[in-house]
């Protein structure tokens, strides 16, 4: 299987629409303006699917239809600020996950939360920040601390980056993971300071080794003792430090303030979010990023930044459409969510680990690299097998996911009509014509008239659809 991620979208209509706007994409004014559908760039099922892949974990048929009816901006209103009682939902799930003392339990509950949440964008962004502020439970060795860490990320995932960074700087799980649980005046621990500058904020090349050493001095006095953060004043270096051109008797809070004052921080973060929400195949030029970075640097409001990106012409253009490779979580939930059921997330967590995305265990301090790194000959076979396990109707997932039942629920009476429905549900029918024809021609598609084997043939067809290269793209 070859995944072509550099090609523009396949659908003919899309090709025409996208080619007509290509030249405008480099104009930040036009690129970041809110998308308004018109005759040239209509609001289609494909665009609705694109939005739900990026801002959620896929959509049900009803959600896609509602989105078509609501239009892009109203759909985005619902995704950005849902009307449901998010706080009550999260309280209930915090309570559920507090009952587990194991990493497996935490993973299972998070995946279930992703499937059922009324605010999928929040979970998606929490997952994004989990990779950005990576910690690994194998080293942290505490479900309670890991739970607190993820709650911090969730509470600020669409809120204030400043508050999130401040929280992370004194999060016990993070400090243990970075080996920074003891930061003494006599021997400042540089691990946290270095990661803060290199991975969390400024990015490589925007600081010097001396800045790291001085910042480490500012963080001295902080310890994690018996799983709790403690500050021991006598271990704090109270002398003058010079960090990123500023001089003073700085503390950790000052370091956070100083790095957030650097333009490079906002730009690095905007670029990172751009890769997640818009496109991971091409680096945006500075001209395109600059207005967003300037705006973000003022208040570090993540929701405002994400909203700008998601509502933009750029987001709904060829430059963004299917320009990301789904992570294993996105791939699996992209099958589960449209089929309107909840599966064993204990099992799913194990299977996702085999595909390279073991929640709470990102491989390095830089999190999951993502992009093309998700794809190799082994993981593609793994994705194929996971899709089969999810859709085959037997152990280990049982018959929770039943494409035929979902198709019937939405008006399909034969397996033939169900195949067209599933193409629309999973890839919004947006395939190269020859691929679509091959899939739907009698030899490839089921032809029985709703008999006993319909469920089986529809399952097999659903498996074919979700193993298409197009389905692996977000």
């Amino acid at each position: 299987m070859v995944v072509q991620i550099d090609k523009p979208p396949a659908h003919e209509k899309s090709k025409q629409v996208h080619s007509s706007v290509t030249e405008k994409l480099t104009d930040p004014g036009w690129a970041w303006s809110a998308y308004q559908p018109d005759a040239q760039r209509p609001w289609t099922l494909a665009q609705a699917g694109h939005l739900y892949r990026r801002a959620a974990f896929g959509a049900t048929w009803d959600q896609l239809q509602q989105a078509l009816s609501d239009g892009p901006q109203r759909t985005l209103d619902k995704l950005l600020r849902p009307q449901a009682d998010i706080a009550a939902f999260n309280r209930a799930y915090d309570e559920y996950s507090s009952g587990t003392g194991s990493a497996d339990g935490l993973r299972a509950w998070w995946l279930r939360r992703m499937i059922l949440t009324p605010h999928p964008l929040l979970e998606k962004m929490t997952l994004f920040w989990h990779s950005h502020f990576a910690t690994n439970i194998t080293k942290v060795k505490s479900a309670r601390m890991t739970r607190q860490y993820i709650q911090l990320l969730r509470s600020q995932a669409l809120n204030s980056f400043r508050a999130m960074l401040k929280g992370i700087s004194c999060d016990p799980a993070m400090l243990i993971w970075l080996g920074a649980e003891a930061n003494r005046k006599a021997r400042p621990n540089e691990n946290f300071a270095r990661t803060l500058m290199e991975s969390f904020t400024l990015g490589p090349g925007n600081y010097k080794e001396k800045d790291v050493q001085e910042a480490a001095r500012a963080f001295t006095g902080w310890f994690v003792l018996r799983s709790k953060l403690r500050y021991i004043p006598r271990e704090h270096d109270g002398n003058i430090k010079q960090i990123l051109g500023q001089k003073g008797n700085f503390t950790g809070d000052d370091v956070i303030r100083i790095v957030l004052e650097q333009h490079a921080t906002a730009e690095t973060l905007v670029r990172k979010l751009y890769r997640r929400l818009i496109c991971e195949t091409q680096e945006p030029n500075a001209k395109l990023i600059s207005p967003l970075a300037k705006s973000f640097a003022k208040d570090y409001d993540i929701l405002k930044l994400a909203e700008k990106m998601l509502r933009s012409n750029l987001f709904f253009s060829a430059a963004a459409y299917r320009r990301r490779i789904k992570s294993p979580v996105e791939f699996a939930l992209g099958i589960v969510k449209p089929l309107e059921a909840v599966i064993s997330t204990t099992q799913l967590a194990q299977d996702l680990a085999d595909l390279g995305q073991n929640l709470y265990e990102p491989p390095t301090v830089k999190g999951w690299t993502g992009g093309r790194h998700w794809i190799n000959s082994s993981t593609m076979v793994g994705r194929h097998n996971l899709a089969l396990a999810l859709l085959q109707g037997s152990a280990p997932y049982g018959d929770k996911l039943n494409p035929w039942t979902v198709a019937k629920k939405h008006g399909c009476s034969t397996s033939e009509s169900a195949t067209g429905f599933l193409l629309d549900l999973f890839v919004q029918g947006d395939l190269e014509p020859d691929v679509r024809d091959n899939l739907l021609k009698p030899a490839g598609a089921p032809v029985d008239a709703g008999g006993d084997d319909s469920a089986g043939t529809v399952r097999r067809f659903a498996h074919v659809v979700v193993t298409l290269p197009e389905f692996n793209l977000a």
Partner: protein
Amino acid sequence: MSQKLGLIPALTLLVFVAQNAMAAQSLPPAIEWIPQDAVISLELTQPKALLEFLSCEKATAAITALPLYQKQASSPQFKEFFNLINFIEITLGTDWRTALAKLTGGGITFAICPEDMLILIIDAEDQDMLQKLHEIFLNMARSGADQQQVASTEFGDVTAWTFNGKESHAIIGKRLVFASSPEGLKAVLELRANSKGANLTSNSTYQKAKAAVKPDAVATIFADLKLLMQIPNIAQALEQQRQNPMTALLLAGVIETIRDSNWLALELHLKENTLDFQLSVDGKTVSTTSPVAFAIPNKPGEGILPNLSVPRRIAAFSLYRDLHSFYAAKDDLFPERTSGLIFFENMMGIFFSGRDLTNEVLIETKPEIRLVVAEQEYDPAIGTPQVKYPAVALILRLRHPDQFNEVAEEAWQKVVGLINFTRGQQAMPGLIIDRPSQGKTKYTVAYFSTTGMEDKTNLDSRFNIRPSLAMPGEYLILSSTDGLAQDLIDALHQETEQTPKPLAGTHSMVELEGGQLASILQANRKTLVQGNMVGKGSTQEQAEANIDMFISLAKFLDSAKLDISVHEGLTRAGLELKLNLQ
């Protein structure tokens, strides 16, 4: 309609005929119509007794109270089944219990023969009712929407029917004969025609198995083990069990005896609220030179000790296992020295200060081993864990308690010390050792302190553990909690006063208390429900229904007792299930 027809074979099996006095004279016992090469056979000689047991008012009330039953009862399929039963009741002019008793009262015989051939023979008491019911099903099959292949053919004086072209059945007097294939029915009819033909009763293996069964059994099952052992999956499963050290320790002698046996006989007796199953096999008794001889009482009068009774007991195990002989035979039992085994021996060397595990440690234990599992009672002043584990204790009998007590105490404290050291390395709190007394027995307990904790109602799982070592008299108690250790000290004290007699010849016994099991499941209901939600993908309501069903089933079982013994050269196992029908 198709669903109704789907029920036909099952109902047919249940519903059709047996014998009245006349028929008994005219028809030979049904077992004589079973081919000689049957691998497994079931003879339900007193179906009415079983029917009365399972359909009595108390049992019916208990079963219908089960959430699972209530859930099923509201399903469309179940309602359709009820409608069918009502229809049959009206047509036969009686209630289903009476109908079932009259239609099966003469006995039910079932056999599995080679090549997946199944034979079922049901002897009715009421021939007219049998014929009437058969007519009902014939009409239903003929009028079925899916047009099942109803057909008949003549075998001599017998009309053979089929509803689907595969199964084949016939009514002969008050007897219904059902076979999974026409060849099966043919084989039965040939045995009927030739009463001197070789049937199962002329099989010498069957005869020996039958001789081991008490004549008053409600039902008996015979299995030809030599044939069954030729099935690769069964042989492989037994071999795998034998290679696992823990399974080998627990099932020693049993696997070897089954592999060596020609036949298995299982009989069922009914007593008030109790189902009593007795199983016998004819395998040779394990010889004293066998590697698994450590599990077999060889001297007269030897055997397990009765299980210990403690408050809130969930389960109790009593085993006769000579650990010294077991470990001495480890090279024969498990020739491969795994890394796990090497690690275990290294650690034992540390804990027992270089003593030889086989000849200086395990030799100090007698073969009577007991294990007790009990629900915990938590002291609110100490705290209650969120997940409540049962307490578990191992009770060993020592040969030289005066000499061995300090050795055991030293080893135990080393284990606690190692745990504390390892936890300390990970900045985790350790165990505190104390030496309190229960009566005249001083014991050692190690515990995690909850001092300073604000919320003591929702503690970590580690607070389920208060490892304790007690050595009252000639016994050594290794318990996961001091509470259970205290109860066991009292129980052993009482037992010593009464001088318990070993259960001669018995080498394994397990007892389970349904009510207490239900109690601990109920105490952990929230955790179990949440585990079910993520484990099965259930909604909270579905998960609650699943867990409540398990709790109800546990409550339905008052108690269960399984014992395995060797008597007069035969290995016997007894399973007693006492149901809570109140």
